[in-house]
């Protein structure tokens, strides 16, 4: 997190080559098909939005991408190499995530939460942990300074020694992002990062995601707030009943009648009206 980022609304970074791709991911729970043949590709420096009604399979898709679920069929690859079916290894490879219902370590301090995020990037064997030699002290110091930078980056420095569970709700979401960034991901998956936030906090989160993108991390965001998604993302995917319905730029998706109908189950005009109404009343 070196240097300041002058313009948060900076022109979108050049979209680079493909980094994360999913091919025909299908997830079956007993008789329920939560995901059906979903494919997508994420490029370097890109922000993708994933929207869809409740129960559309968005979080399930995240779980498949991060190795928490083993897809019934289909494959997920990072930079062309298939990902292992183990969340820990996936994180090690460079995919980090946050959770829809915040999953911080509640009885650890903010600093310790982020330090846990450093786990995969720290070299500290059990023996070294036991003896606390010079190498250990170096790696601890390095991890703590990185942690301090990250807390600064998300604006939580003053809460460094506070227990995670005592943080205000919005700050808990931010801390989760800092913890995910500590793993030095090349892809960051955010599951409803603005849920429960007011307009001001939502805007701050939007700027934060831009800053993260500008540092070279590609981002996939699940959100219900369509305004947030349409102003944030380079591309938007619409998932309905486990199927990828539409994919395109925010403008394309916004105007697509199928989306409006599937997503809100009502004729387009009315929905357009509803969306505007919703946007005006925060």
């Amino acid at each position, binding site marked *: 997190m070196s240097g300041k980022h002058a313009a948060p609304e900076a022109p979108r970074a050049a979209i680079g080559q493909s980094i994360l791709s999913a091919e025909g991911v299908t997830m079956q*729970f007993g008789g329920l098909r939560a995901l059906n043949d979903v494919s997508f590709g994420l490029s370097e420096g890109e922000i993708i939005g994933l929207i869809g009604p409740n129960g559309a399979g968005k*979080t399930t898709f995240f*779980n498949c991408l991060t190795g*928490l*679920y083993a897809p019934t069929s289909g494959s997920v690859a990072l930079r062309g190499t298939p990902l292992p079916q183990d969340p820990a290894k996936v994180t090690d490879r460079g995919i980090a995530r946050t*959770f829809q219902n915040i999953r911080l370590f509640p009885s650890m301090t903010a600093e310790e939460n982020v330090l846990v995020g450093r786990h995969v990037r720290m070299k500290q064997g059990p023996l070294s942990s036991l003896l606390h030699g010079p190498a250990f002290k170096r790696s601890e110091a390095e991890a703590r300074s990185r942690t301090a930078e990250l807390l600064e980056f998300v604006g939580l420095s003053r809460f460094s020694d506070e227990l995670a569970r005592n943080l205000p709700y919005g700050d808990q979401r931010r801390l989760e992002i800092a913890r995910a960034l500590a793993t030095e991901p090349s892809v960051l998956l955010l599951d409803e990062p603005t849920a429960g936030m007011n307009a001001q906090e939502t805007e701050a989160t939007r700027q934060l995601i831009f800053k993260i993108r500008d540092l070279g991390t590609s981002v996939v965001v699940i959100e219900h707030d369509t305004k947030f998604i349409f102003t944030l993302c380079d591309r938007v995917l619409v998932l309905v009943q486990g199927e990828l319905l539409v994919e395109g730029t925010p403008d394309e998706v916004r105007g697509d009648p199928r989306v409006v109908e599937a997503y809100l189950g009502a004729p387009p005009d009315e929905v357009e009206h509803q969306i505007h109404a919703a946007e005006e009343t925060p």
Partner: protein
Amino acid sequence: MLSTLLSQIVNGLVTGALIGLIALGYTMVYGIIQLINFAHGEIFMVGSYGGLAMFTYLMPTAIQNQWYFALPLLLIAGAAVSVAVAVLMERFAYRPLRNAPRLAPLITALGVSVALQEAVRVFYPGATAALPFPKAFVEGTWEIPVPGGTVPLRWTGLLIIVTALVLTFALNTFVNNSRMGRAMRATSQDRDVARLMGIDPDRVIVLTFVLGAALAGVAGVLNGVDLGFTNIDLGFQNGIFAFTAAVLGGIGSIKGAVAGGFAIGLVKALGGQYLPGGTAYDYVWIFVVLIAVLVFRPQGFFGETERVRA
């Protein structure tokens, strides 16, 4: 050879029926509040002392030798004492911890277990050693003829098997068909939703403890009648076996608990007969089965798979 095998199978079935009766309490309580009620084994033990107290202190000597009078009274006394203890235990030890992290009730259950066992040892006259239990049933065995010999089945053993099957059937009918049974199933699915539907979860939970304890109390008395003695350490042992049975059958499943009980009984009897080490190691085989089941099939054989939460 065949008669030995069959004899061991019969032994296993008797033990298994008893364990199954206790396992029902484990499985119901776990199904409804996800608590491993360690103290349930002690509820079984307390039941046997309840029956013994009835026989020793309350029962007119005139009917002591007429088992058809004595046995029902023993069973009622045993079940009553077990139920009373279980209700107190639920009210004062577990209910205050309803929303505590999961370790807390488990450790509380350990504490209750130790306290109950010790309370009986300290306060029940003579309970520091095994006490003789009235053989309030037809004594002797039924020698079932098989090729190459006979297979002995104690009449008390037969009583245990029949009682276990009848009570399981009754319980299953109750849970599936009665209004309270439906409330129990609803509460075990989702306590908060059940509350919204007008079910009082506390009442349902107490009822669960009551049913489990009544069965354990009956088992306690039957075990005493069968063995001819009772002891304070019987609860812990049989409790662990019953827990194993409940897990084996798929925790939360009534039929599973009894099936698991029979499986455990057979492992104990046949393992003691045929596996290296003999009867000295029969307990070890049960624990080996327990570990294997928990590791390889934690949902048991009648249960559902648990999904990862995320």
